[in-house]
């Protein structure tokens, strides 16, 4: 059990490429923190810096009460689950789990006990004698988890552990990992590019972009009050609509914008906040034409184009409207649903 403190971490590669900059982050003991961002945003690098697989160019990393900058991965009391599982192909599942313990000089009966226990927890007890190649993707994933579990480390590190699984299995493992983490109460750092995975699993979400932290907060916090236009566009699917304030004003919505700061020149609207029914006075009202109707079962996505013919928007409805493509429609949204941003800095106002 341990807290992690990242104090101004930087990573510059030998070629001069800045992978990670200015990372200040405190992770509480037992917390499940998810690092999320597009590929190349430095999230894996940051995780590997915590693991000790990448050196830290600048800054101080504390796990528990030790500064671990100069420690080998094995000395940091962490366990890591790799994206491709990295199981030892020539060893049986049992030996895969036991290898780390043997290297630490854990006694044989204790190894046996811990491996059996982890195997039971992950329901891989029946495969202990098999080689990794005789297992399915989901089972391998469990073995990789097991290898982390048996170590009983202070911190779990997950590097996109579910990205090689099919969609159904991913949802199932997502729930299991989350439950397991709750039960063990081990501090966890989890990297993913899947914003849905990030939203559902995290106690706290860290959104990264270009090697910097864009926003830290609970998933709902980040979702309902994105700090930057980047976060607004990245978290949520379909992405938030971004409209220039001038366009809204020109279309008779000056009233709706009156409550926003004067320098809010970009306004965000979540697709699900927009509807076809009139809202209370003072809301946003936009005329648009329906380009494409996407029924997705429980919800329907409308791809529309505003009256200016250029600006595109997405609307999410919980029902299938009786509309045909090409129809003209009027969109409504309450004023409270508007997210004001400053276009130049990308920062949220208010």
């Amino acid at each position, binding site marked *: 059990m341990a807290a992690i403190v990242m104090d101004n971490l930087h990573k510059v590669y030998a070629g001069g490429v800045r992978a990670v900059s200015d990372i200040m982050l405190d992770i509480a003991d037992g917390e499940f923190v998810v690092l999320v961002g597009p590929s190349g945003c430095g999230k894996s690098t940051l995780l590997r810096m915590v*693991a000790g*697989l990448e050196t830290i160019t600048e800054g101080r990393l504390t796990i528990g009460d030790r500064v671990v900058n100069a420690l*080998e991965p*094995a000395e940091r009391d962490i366990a*890591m689950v790799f994206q*491709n599982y*990295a199981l030892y192909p*020539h060893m049986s599942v049992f030996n895969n789990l036991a290898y*780390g313990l043997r290297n630490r000089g854990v006694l044989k009966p204790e190894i046996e006990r811990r491996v059996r226990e982890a195997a039971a927890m992950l329901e891989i007890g029946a495969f202990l004698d098999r080689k990794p190649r005789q297992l399915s993707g989901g089972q391998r994933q469990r073995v990789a988890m097991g*290898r982390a579990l048996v170590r009983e480390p202070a911190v779990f590190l997950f590097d996109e552990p579910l990205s090689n699984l099919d969609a159904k299995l991913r949802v199932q493992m997502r729930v299991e990992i989350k439950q397991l983490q709750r039960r063990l109460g081990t501090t966890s750092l989890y990297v993913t590019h899947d914003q849905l995975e990030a939203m559902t699993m995290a106690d706290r979400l860290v959104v990264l972009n270009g090697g910097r932290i864009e926003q830290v907060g609970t998933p709902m916090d980040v979702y309902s009050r994105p700090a930057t236009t980047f976060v607004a566009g990245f978290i949520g699917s379909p992405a938030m609509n971004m409209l220039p304030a001038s366009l809204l004003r020109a279309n008779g919505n000056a009233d709706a914008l009156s409550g926003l700061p004067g320098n809010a020149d970009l306004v965000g609207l979540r697709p699900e906040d927009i509807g076809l029914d009139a809202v209370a006075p003072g809301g946003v009202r936009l005329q648009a034409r329906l380009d494409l109707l996407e029924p997705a079962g429980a919800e329907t996505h409308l791809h529309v184009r505003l009256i200016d013919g250029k600006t595109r928007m997405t609307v999410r409805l919980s029902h299938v409207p009786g509309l045909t493509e090409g129809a003209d429609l009027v969109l409504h949204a309450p004023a409270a649903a508007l997210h004001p941003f400053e276009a130049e800095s990308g920062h949220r106002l208010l």
Partner: protein
Amino acid sequence: MVENRPLGNLLSHVVLIFGVALVVFPIYVAIIASPHPPGTFLRGVMPLLPGPNALENYRTAWTEGRSRAGTPPISLMLTNSLIMALAITIGKLAISIISAFAIVYFRFPFRIFFFWIIFLTLMLPVEVRIVPTFQVVADLGMLNSYAGLSIPLIASATATFLVRQFFMTVPEELMEAARVDGAGPMKFFRDILLPLSITNIAALFVIMFIYGWNQYLWPLLITTDPEYYTIVMGIQRMVTGGDSEPLWHLVMATVVMAALPPVLVILFMQRLFVKGLTETEK
């Protein structure tokens, strides 16, 4: 790819059979000639059917060789060849595995430079560097010794290069997982890398053994004492040494026996060998 074209089938079979015949015929001649009495060859006609003296000829070759011409018995030369080939093979494998490990898994200054230096020596066959090598070996007093026979041939860029290529296909995450699991570099090498490369090493073993076994020019240069003759060069001595006509029946018996060990090595290691060339366990 599964097509049935009789003409193409026939043509390819004819070509293949012709190729096989071309390779097999000399071996057939050697086997056929070895059991003939010495007189057969004086007529200058090569027999195509086996003669009656098999046991006797092979026994003579095995125990006496052609002592008058100064060649030792085959048994001794076979032993010498075996020692040389094994020393070369094991030495080559040990050195190339270790150096490939260093090149792939360690970041040290001039790593790429060293790799290219090793790689460059690929382009220098034994024959090119044979004179300076001979000088070095002579100065070190290693003429007429097993060390002299094997050590200069041990350094191998080819094997280093092949092992390096294999190591590079081993996913990096395995090394990282081992680091997280508390295995140092040598432990990773022993517990994970070596077991994974076992089939590749077996394949290399076969290739290197045959390379070592077939060494001709080098042993010919540095051995003057028959005690250290190897079989492949010994054959040459048997043919040219002495005043009389070459004793072809003995030469052929020797040839057959010289060819056996590499064949046996391939047979015994075939399963691993083929696996090593075609698949990797990753």
